[in-house]
């Protein structure tokens, strides 16, 4: 089922949580709502579920107005950050709850409910915990049970509010890959809220970046990472270095070399520009290469990981973050305190000042 959010506004006292938010989610998509805390992402999710009401705007489920429907009739699966499992019920009773509270006319028989619970426990690979209480499970297991419980009512839409937020890093990684595979099998239209950009980039089909109650950008992980629509998106989706570009004779310069803009000409009224460059977009060497090489001193080296991260300090006192491959590093063997030259290969984002 597709979801369409139109011009949603929501205010809490004086705080504008959502300011004219519109969004379209296609059937079967896995969407991440990404943003810092207070950006309104959870509020948007709760409005879609019907747990909050918008001040104005529309929510359409498959083209039909959902705002008139109560939460219990929306057929939405909701997974909470802190699981919200019913603590006084066993795991099996938790999962069966959504079926048992159905009106008698459509409620499945107790045998069918039991079979369904078993299927769902198999699906989340926890078939041996049915008789336990939630307090006897680990965090990762609880979240999987919460997901099984949400799926029991065969929702058309699955909403997950920071589903991995209260888990430790290792479990979080496992569980989000599991969620991805899981979604590929079931194809339920899903939205999940996260403040972890890595999580969003890794799992989602598309990412909705939110800030201060507004949508900053909607796009595939590649799009938001490589073609950010704003400085906020740029900053939020990874480390970034800022340079001042100068405009001389209608050309943009970084250092002493003109910048290859690639996508069209510089407009004539531009006076200067902020150039944003990701840490992996640099060449680094002991000898200066090219006119825009910047001299810097290596302050810190982090060798752990798939790439080598260097913190550099330029002559003007600015800090630079540079990332090179392990292979490049093994050839050059930079050491801490060494003087090097860095040369930008590419630019992620230009912000012009007119």
């Amino acid at each position, binding site marked *: 089922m597709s979801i369409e959010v139109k011009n949603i506004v929501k205010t809490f006292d004086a705080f504008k949580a959502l300011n004219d938010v519109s969004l379209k989610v296609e059937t079967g998509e896995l969407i991440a709502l990404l943003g810092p805390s207070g950006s309104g992402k959870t509020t948007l999710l709760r409005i879609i*579920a019907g747990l909050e009401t918008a001040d104005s705007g529309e929510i359409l489920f498959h083209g039909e107005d959902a705002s008139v429907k109560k939460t219990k009739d929306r057929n939405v699966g909701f997974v909470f950050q802190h699981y919200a499992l019913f603590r*006084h019920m066993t795991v099996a009773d938790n999962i069966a709850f*959504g079926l048992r509270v159905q009106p008698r006319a459509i409620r499945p028989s107790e045998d069918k409910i039991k079979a369904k619970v078993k299927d769902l426990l198999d699906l989340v690979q926890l078939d041996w915990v049915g008789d336990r209480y939630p307090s006897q499970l680990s965090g990762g297991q609880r979240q999987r049970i919460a997901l099984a419980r949400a799926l029991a009512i065969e929702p058309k839409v699955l909403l997950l509010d920071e589903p991995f937020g209260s888990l430790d890093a290792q479990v979080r990684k496992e569980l989000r890959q599991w969620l991805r595979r899981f979604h590929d099998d079931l194809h339920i239209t899903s939205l999940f809220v996260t403040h972890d950009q890595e999580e969003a980039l890794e799992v989602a089909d598309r990412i909705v970046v939110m800030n201060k109650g507004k949508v900053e950008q909607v796009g595939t992980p590649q799009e938001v990472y490589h073609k950010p629509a704003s400085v906020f998106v740029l900053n939020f989706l990874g480390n970034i270095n800022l340079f001042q570009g100068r405009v001389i004779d209608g050309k943009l310069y970084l250092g002493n070399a003109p910048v290859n803009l690639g996508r069209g000409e510089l407009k004539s009224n531009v006076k200067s520009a902020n150039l944003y460059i990701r840490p992996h977009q640099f060449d680094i060497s002991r000898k200066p290469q090219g006119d825009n090489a910047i001299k810097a001193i290596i302050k810190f080296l982090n060798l752990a990981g798939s790439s080598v991260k260097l913190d550099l300090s330029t002559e003007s006192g600015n800090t630079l973050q540079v990332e090179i491959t392990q292979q490049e590093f093994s050839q050059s063997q930079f050491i801490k305190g060494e003087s090097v030259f860095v040369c930008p290969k590419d630019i992620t984002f230009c912000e012009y000042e007119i």
Partner: protein
Amino acid sequence: MSLARTESPLIRRILIGIALFYLILFIFMPLFIVFSTALEKGVSYYFNSLKDPDTIASIQLTLITALIAVPLNLVFGVAASWAIAKFDFRGKNILLTLIDVPLSVSPVISGLIFVLLFGLQGIFGPWLRDHGWRIIFTPSAIILATIFVTFPMVARELIPVMKAQGNDEEEAAITLGANGWKTFWYITLPNIKWGLLYGVILCNARAMGEFGAVSVVSGHIQGFTNTLPLQIEMLYNDYSFTAAFAAASLLAFLALFTLVIKSLVEYRFRAELKAVRKGAH
């Protein structure tokens, strides 16, 4: 699981000793004296003094009062704590303060309030008299005063429990298709039932044992408006010590009985209780 203990064994023993000393001095000794004085003149005398018609009437009035006050305050307590713990609304703090009023004013003043409201010189007194109703110096006044004095007991017990549990589970139930009533019945109520049980036990104990407020509105009419505590006082003032203590032993016995019931219920549901207290977090 063992907690790190930093205190020396000596300090531990001293602390336990102080606690025990207090228990013996203020709980066990009075209890012992109540029962020993009641049985001083033998078992048959004990039962005969309880068979006194006025004493039986006072027992009946006490039971009826509790039977009306406790369920009403149970409903009020659940509704008030539900509102306070789960919703934000204007005047919430005022409501919280008002709930505490019966606990913070002297019971005698609580009783006087009813006299001022419903007595012949009171606000509604003349109107009630004209319509042939009497409240003060009748069992109705006793019931009203008891309800007033005991209404915080359940709410006080439930508000912290409900606040600590938050709204998550109720919201989960609603997204799973449960309506408000089913959510309350299957999710909220099971989570608060222990707090509710303690609240009811406290409320009941206070309803049966209340003296001050009831004393002011009762008029001490033997066999009509005397509750058990008032009857005990009257017997005591008449120097019928054995009869007074026999009646008092009934109240004490009732307190012990509710405690035993509570412990039995706790024992029976210990696994579930553990799961609920540990919480799902």
